[in-house]
């Protein structure tokens, strides 16, 4: 009744091609973005910003990146952690070499560096597909982590091999380093996420996204209608790695503060892949939902027994958390193999008919 597009007439091509053609969607998304920007910095305490919302924004960006590659272009990648590490280490080297450079510029440059590396590791994708490609990207993951661990130049010869985010400001406001407050870091992470999510949404609606999907659905057919496979696949690797690189730089600069290579190990690659799969392959919204599921549910499960008044040893609690979390993932994948984004789509269809379904 409320959610209905009847009466909304499109009178121009621009209106017809808008990202959100339905008025209600536009209002909802605008409200959502406003709430995300305004409410948490004002009411959330530091625990919520630091331990939940900042990682959520960063993981969502990485998940969008991987979704472009795996969900839209159909190229399976297990190298996300490695590409994020490239972004993190590139940002560290850039900002320590050029301390005057705006940290946002550093993030973008770090993303470009990751894109270049992604391009190189994307080359085998022309010849190998599916599981074999996954193994090739796995090599990228292990090689990159080994490289950053082995070559001390990347850490500026720190004896511990740890990179630490130095204090940097944006327009005079402390953004990174120990003195940057959580609300500032949250707003920066969210701002970057909002901009790049919008870019991604437009990319996948345009020529580039359509050629990715053509390659994903059947590469031979795509080649025959004029999509160049090498260029398209490499572009997907580059754009995806760019997103992961920016996310990796934020991971160290806005979230952890300092990191060692272990923070970017294979577990991170799997985590982001699970976000994409649970959220929904080939959906920008799915990347957000997947990241929210993977970040929020364990924290909810950790805190729930305490708030229910149940007292149990921490070890037991952790084991239960892992079991419940695993069971939930399996449950969702059985009930809705297309991910959380598909559930949202179904809900929207139902809402259009409500309250008079056929």
């Amino acid at each position: 009744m409320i959610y209905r597009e009847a009466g909304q007439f499109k009178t121009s091509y621009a209106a017809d091609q808008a990202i959100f053609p339905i008025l209600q969607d536009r209002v909802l998304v605008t409200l959502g973005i406003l709430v995300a920007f305004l409410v948490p910095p004002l009411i959330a305490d530091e625990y919520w910003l630091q331990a939940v919302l900042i990682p959520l924004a960063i993981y969502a960006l990485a998940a969008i990146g991987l979704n472009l590659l795996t969900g839209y272009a159909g190229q399976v990648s297990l190298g996300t952690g490695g590409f994020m590490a490239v972004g993190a280490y590139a940002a560290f080297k850039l900002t320590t070499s050029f301390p005057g450079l705006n940290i946002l510029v550093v993030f973008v440059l770090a993303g470009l560096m990751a894109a270049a590396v992604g391009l190189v590791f994307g080359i085998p994708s022309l010849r190998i597909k599916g599981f074999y490609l996954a193994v090739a990207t796995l090599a990228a993951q292990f090689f990159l982590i080994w490289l950053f661990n082995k070559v001390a130049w990347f850490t500026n010869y720190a004896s511990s091999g740890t990179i630490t985010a130095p204090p940097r400001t944006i327009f005079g406001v402390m953004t990174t380093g120990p003195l940057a407050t959580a609300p500032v870091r949250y707003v920066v992470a969210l701002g970057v996420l909002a901009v790049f999510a919008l870019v991604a949404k437009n990319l996948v609606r345009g020529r580039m996204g359509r050629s990715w999907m053509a390659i994903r659905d059947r590469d031979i057919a795509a080649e025959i209608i004029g999509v160049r496979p090498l260029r398209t696949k490499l572009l997907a690797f580059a754009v995806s790695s760019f997103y992961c690189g920016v996310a990796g730089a934020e991971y160290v600069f806005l979230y952890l503060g300092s990191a060692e290579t272990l923070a970017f190990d294979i577990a991170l690659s799997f985590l982001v892949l699970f976000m994409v799969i649970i959220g929904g392959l080939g959906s920008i919204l799915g990347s957000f939902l997947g990241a929210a599921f993977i970040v929020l549910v364990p924290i909810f499960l950790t805190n729930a027994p305490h708030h229910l008044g149940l007292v149990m040893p921490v070890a037991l609690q952790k084991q239960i958390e892992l079991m419940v979390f695993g069971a939930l993932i399996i449950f969702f994948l059985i009930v809705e193999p297309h991910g959380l984004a598909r559930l949202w789509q179904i809900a929207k269809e139902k809402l259009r008919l409500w309250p008079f379904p056929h």
Partner: protein
Amino acid sequence: MRIRVLLGLAIAALLLGPLAIAGSAQTPGGAAHTKDAFIPLLVYRTGPYAPSGIPIANGFVDYFTLINERDGGINGIKVAWEECETQYDTKQGVECYERLKGKSALLVNPYSTGITYQLIPKAPVDKVVVFSMGYGMSAASDGRWFPWVFNFPTNYWSQASAVIRYISQQEGGLEKLKGKKIAHIYHNSPYGKEANSTLEDLAKKYQFELTLLAVDHPGQEQKSTWLQIRRLNPDWIFMSGWGVMNQVAVKEAAAIGFKMDHFIGNWWSASDADVIPAGEAAKGYKGATFHAPGIGYKVHTEVIKHVYDKGKGAGKKEEVGSPLYNRGIVNAMLAAEAIRTAAVKYPKQALNAEQVRWGFENLNLTDKRLDELGMKGFTHPVKVSCEDHEGGGPVLIQQWDGKKWSVVSDWVAVMREVVRPKIEAAAVEEGKKLGYTQRDCAKEK
């Protein structure tokens, strides 16, 4: 169709549930702690490092239970604590820290070098003492740059120098080190790499041949490392390992027939869990420590009497006295004594973190006090100062005889003349990275 609706509701509940909890978390929950000394314990009782994490956590909790049960707290201040599971994972550790610091935490024991590195920049901002006993960042030993971080009684660099001194004693003098081949096998992480720079400096000074061999996390696969050892045939091996890496290394050393009494682990590489899996072959393996192993001290009888006999023990009675359990005891004791120092200076009030920091900085643990605590000979006296948050205490070498650990050396002095200038130089470098300035200790007296 109905299942879809249910599913939608389930997701909504899962996503909104945490927000509801956030709302309730806003209400002041720390009120119960205002009179107690609240100490968050980051533990790892699950995951790949659990065999090492469980005894430390048990030792810690048992000592605090002992203080509360026997003495009614530290000078009347009851100790309150809450455990949080980190699985030795940095991200989970940070989550734990953020969750627990809001309950007016006085100090935090990160129990992991990786987590310590995360917490060091946060400590002065949040005003929480970071007590990384014998681990963490060695450079933080300079209290002028890192007022909120303490790593007494001894840090990794001092430990490495003491082990080299012990080796020289076995060889018959420091000059005999010349030309000897010493290998350092280390966990490829900030923790494992800590000792490298000190060993390199010492190698230059005493002209021994040093080989650095990294083992990647988690350390189950070490064939190539031990192939290199076989080729190199070093005179001594020093190891900075952790978790499963240690027992694999001990087994591999036995497999290539390396002289076990020339194989020395650092204090995180010499517990029961590291040697028992290797069986007979582990006999003779040595480890560094800053406290004695075993249950032969008065403090253990007290723990058994006041904690275990009342059914309040955190672990099994048989496990009291293992090296890592004893480390937990020492860690808890040092923290408690620092709080006591603060409580003497600021009597009859609830302590805040600033005051506890003062207590840590002015801790003077004498032999007499150790005797009162039932720990004479168990560990050594510690004196902390504004400049020196490490103390540079001596190191013991313990040896595994197939059944138990026993001490085989006197207290080995660290090479302070080598280590302290390195700490001061590194503190300037690390401090500047974080935008710190040096404080003037003369003004604080």
